[in-house]
């Protein structure tokens, strides 16, 4: 097995949603002494980019994207155990869904994409208070808060994150990015909650964070 055949096989398992086969391919690649950091960079990362492009073209449903992200999460966790020295994260981000919002598929996708792209992700999970986002971001020295919502009114309440960042004079250190259906349905909505930016999908989230905090 080489990196190219590994990439092809891994992509096939993602499209087929074959979770067991996904694990096996990573084990086979490690057994073939492919460097784990190279497997992340040249197998897992491009495979995610490939399926993400397909989702943008609406070829893949949200449920399927979520399962693919689960396979990738498993692969990433295994590979990070195998690297001789854990890579230094590009930056740290805090992620979660808005208070009262229990719609977590999109959040999980973004978290996985961010990790694959080399970010440290602190996932606060579902129904997170605005203050909790900021407190955690300060605590882990995060450079960005990524807040997701599916409901209009929970999305509106995310404006409170901006208020807290301003009160605590943190606006220069911590960027505030929103995502989720209401922001996609109304492309001007993110300005209403005074976010620094919105992300239309998981790939866009990675690009937006990179741009806002100035990391490659």
């Amino acid at each position, binding site marked *: 097995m080489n990196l190219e055949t590994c990439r092809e096989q891994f992509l096939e398992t993602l499209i087929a949603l074959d979770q067991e086969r996904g694990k096996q391919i990573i084990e086979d690649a490690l057994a073939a002494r492919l460097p784990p950091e190279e497997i992340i960079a040249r197998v897992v990362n491009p495979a995610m980019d490939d399926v993400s492009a397909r989702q943008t073209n609406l070829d893949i449903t949200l449920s399927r994207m979520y399962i693919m992200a689960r396979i990738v999460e498993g692969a990433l966790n295994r590979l990070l155990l195998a690297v001789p020295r854990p890579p230094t994260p590009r930056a740290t981000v805090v992620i979660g869904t808005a208070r009262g919002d229990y719609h977590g598929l999109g959040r999980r996708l973004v978290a996985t994409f961010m990790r694959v792209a080399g970010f440290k992700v602190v996932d606060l999970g579902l129904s997170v208070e605005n203050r909790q986002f900021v407190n955690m971001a300060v605590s882990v020295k995060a450079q960005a808060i990524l807040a997701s919502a599916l409901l209009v009114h929970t999305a*509106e309440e995310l404006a409170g994150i901006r208020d807290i960042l301003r009160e605590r004079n943190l606006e220069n250190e911590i960027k505030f990015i929103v995502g989720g259906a209401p922001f996609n*349905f*109304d492309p001007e909505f993110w300005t209403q909650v005074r976010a620094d930016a919105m992300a239309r999908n998981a790939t866009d989230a990675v690009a937006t964070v990179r741009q806002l905090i100035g990391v490659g």
Partner: protein
Amino acid sequence: MADTLTALERLLATVTHKKPDRPPVFPVMLMQGARELGLLLEEYFSKGEHYAHGQLRLLEKFGHDCVIGVPHVVEDTVAFGATLMYFRNGPPSLGKMVLREAKDARKLAPADPKKFPALQETLHALDILAQNVKGRVPIIGAAVAPFSLPSLLMGAEAWVDLLFSDPATRDPILAHALAVTRDFCVAWANAQLEAGADAMVLADGMASATMITRDEFIQFALPIIRETISQIKGPVVWEGVGSVLPVIDLIAETGAAGIILDYHDDLATAHKIAAGKITLIGNFNNIAMRRWSPEKMREEVERALAATGGMDYIVSAQGPEIPLGVSDETIRAMIETTKNFQYA
């Protein structure tokens, strides 16, 4: 042009694929009644009497074609142990997940909707609405569809994990969960119909084409939708809460009278599939609508009526509720533009 049919006659003509005097217009206003009554949303949603009087006040103010008898379908979860969290600016949501993981769905126990105070309040609201407008204005009930109710109890992540897990593990859990939620949905829908509802909306957010493929829909969702609709003693509208275009033909064969479209669904394409089979409802972008002027709303209604010819079609939003931020003038523009429509 003056209306020649009552709102109920207009709806009946539409769903039986006849030409009414004009298409029905359903601006679904779940929250606006609180403002009319000067109440906080929590007070408004918690008491059937408040909610019903809010609906009646809105009907008097706007002159549209329906009242909605259910504050919000998320209340269905209280029958399985959930608590609700209220907001100043939107519908309630879950206070917390009821099930920690998918395998806990094995423990789901049958629930009688009539035993829960929050649901009793909804039946009271329907009763008041029936006393005031029954036989004249359609009274719409609503419930979460059986396929999607488990995702509200355990979270979408756990539900999707279960759907895509090993069939030997998945199938018994799925069969039990769906049997419990189907029986609950049927009992709750029939209780609403007995209390005065004329039709039921089943909200099925996990079954839209945004969430699952057509093949997965056929495997997981369609059989339970068919079973449920066959046991509900009144007309049913199916709402995917996401794109539904790829499954309109399948829903049309379940016995559903109507289907609510997502704004991504092309109305003209949907109409070609649905004409003479099932009534289309929608599909204005209710999020962007918060910034629409009355003129923009008129354009959107005219576009929708042109795409459907005003047949087999109810003017409404995706979602379908109208957010609080939409102005009264914009809502009026939806209604007045529909009322001024003339068939070619």
